[in-house]
């Protein structure tokens, strides 16, 4: 004679499950449609005309796109490398040992780019670089690299610091006890254990740099398009489904990176 009524489950809230599933569907619907229509034979973004690779081919042929993509990638690579290196050093300095005078200020400065709205940083840099341009005449890519490196530092810093904090501090003490110099201890003990955090920081910085549109858009010199700024330009004017194809590829890249990131965290 089992109970015929619905059993009471403690941690269930009526409606929440449905809403959550709806949210998940909503999160993926727009992007899924975008990806699906990137394979559309027709130029329309709403009417399906059959499966086709044409937009991917067109994107591949498009020199502007290739140019922008290439620039985005090396910019992200450079910026992320610089940012990660600086962040690693800073993380080590601020995590181990006694707090030194001014450490909170250092911490605040490093995290500042996270708190300042992007547009504000963008125009501030616009002003600053314009002034330097007038003073020196240089209009190269260094501005972009510097700007990207700067706002990537806090993004690289946080995972590295988190990893450092969760590491057993006594390991380095043990190494010292076994006659290791600080540099050796760092190289043989800290660094290998810190490596996943550094990689996580680099990946985060890389993605953030790839992603950036507001700052890049305002400080770029003419002709120096990154992929996001190119797309922004396209989206503002006419629509070209090549942008769809590019978006789909971008999305795939994000998925790959996030999956990698998740596995990295899992192994811990």
């Amino acid at each position, binding site marked *: 004679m089992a109970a015929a009524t619905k059993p009471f489950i403690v941690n269930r809230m009526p409606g929440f*499950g449905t809403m959550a599933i709806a*949210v998940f569907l909503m999160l993926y619907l727009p*992007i899924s449609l975008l990806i699906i229509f990137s394979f559309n034979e027709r130029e329309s973004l*709403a009417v399906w005309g059959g499966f086709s690779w044409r937009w991917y081919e067109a994107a591949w042929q498009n020199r502007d796109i290739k140019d922008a993509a290439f620039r985005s990638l090396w910019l992200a690579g450079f910026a992320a490398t610089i940012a990660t290196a*600086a962040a690693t050093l*800073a993380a080590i300095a*601020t995590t181990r040992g006694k707090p030194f005078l001014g450490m909170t200020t250092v911490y605040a400065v490093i995290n500042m780019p996270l708190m300042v709205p992007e547009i*504000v940083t963008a125009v501030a840099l616009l002003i600053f670089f314009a002034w330097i341009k007038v003073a020196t005449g240089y209009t190269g890519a260094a501005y972009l690299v510097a700007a990207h490196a700067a706002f990537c530092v806090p993004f690289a810093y946080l995972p590295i610091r988190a990893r450092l904090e969760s590491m057993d501090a006594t390991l380095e003490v043990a190494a010292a006890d076994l006659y290791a110099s600080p540099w050796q201890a760092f190289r043989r003990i800290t660094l290998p254990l810190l490596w996943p955090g550094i990689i996580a920081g680099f990946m985060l910085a890389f993605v953030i740099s790839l992603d950036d549109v507001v700052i890049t858009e305002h400080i770029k010199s003419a002709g120096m398009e990154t992929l996001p700024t190119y797309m922004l330009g396209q989206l*503002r004017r006419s629509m070209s489904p090549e942008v769809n194809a590019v978006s789909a590829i*971008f999305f795939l890249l994000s998925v790959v990176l996030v999956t990698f990131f998740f596995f990295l965290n899992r192994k811990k």
Partner: protein
Amino acid sequence: MTAAREVAEAAERRDVRNRWYLTAPALIIIMLAAIGPLFIMVVYSFLGKGDYGGVTAAFSTDAWFGVLLERDIFDDTLGFADAHMIIFWRSVRLAGVTTILTLLLGFPTAYFITTRPEKQRDIWLFLVTIPFWTNLLIRTFAIQELIRRDGIINNVLTGLGIVDEPLQMLNTDFAIGLGMVYVYLPLMVLPIYASMEKLDFRMVEAGYDLYAGRLAVLRRIIIPLVKPGIIAGSILVFIPALGAYVAPALLGGGRNMMISNLISLQFGQGRNWPLGAALSITLMAIVMVALLVYVRNASRSSARAH
């Protein structure tokens, strides 16, 4: 005795010095390319505007006046800059609405994830994180595609005969709000989840045991205990929403500007760099105030817990 202490102190001083060296690269990069320029911007906000953009060397408070006020071109009286007012109000309104909507949608989502069995939770978090890491432009663009006049939603609606004419959804405040909710939703879910994960569900059981119905348990037990996460999520959504650039640019068309578009305009067609600088500082000030409120609230609630 003192010799040993001297050695120790020297070592400590060296240690501190080394640490400064280590943080130097990060500090330099950020000061040069992120923070330093802010000071220059402050200076610029007090200069006169140049004819072709840029600034003149003259001191002027015109820019600061221009943030809120404007001179009527006909009778030269000072009145409120209506255009600016509308933009400020739109930004605050949309940021607020976005925050509330993401809260209403994100809270049940975070709850759902928290109440999944342990092994499943990672997968759900993974699913929330992917959109979060996807390019902002792409996500906004995806919404644009959805709601255009010749977009999918309109096609479905006209095709099914629900409407005769395609709906005008793009280039409206609604579109911007929709875009921002879509983009910032993960930013609300994750902090709330982080807070909920720490919730001891035995307390929920205790609530039910003591005659609290579902709504009462939610209101009196779950929400108060998850408040830090809710506040964190709200800040993480409100501040970027306030300073949003891409969503209003792509979804609002040229007309429905928010603060960041207004600022950007001053450095483009508007050719009023000092005004742009002043507006930027105003935006920063609002953000700082919001952050301060959050920090004060966060430390007070953690103090209360102890």
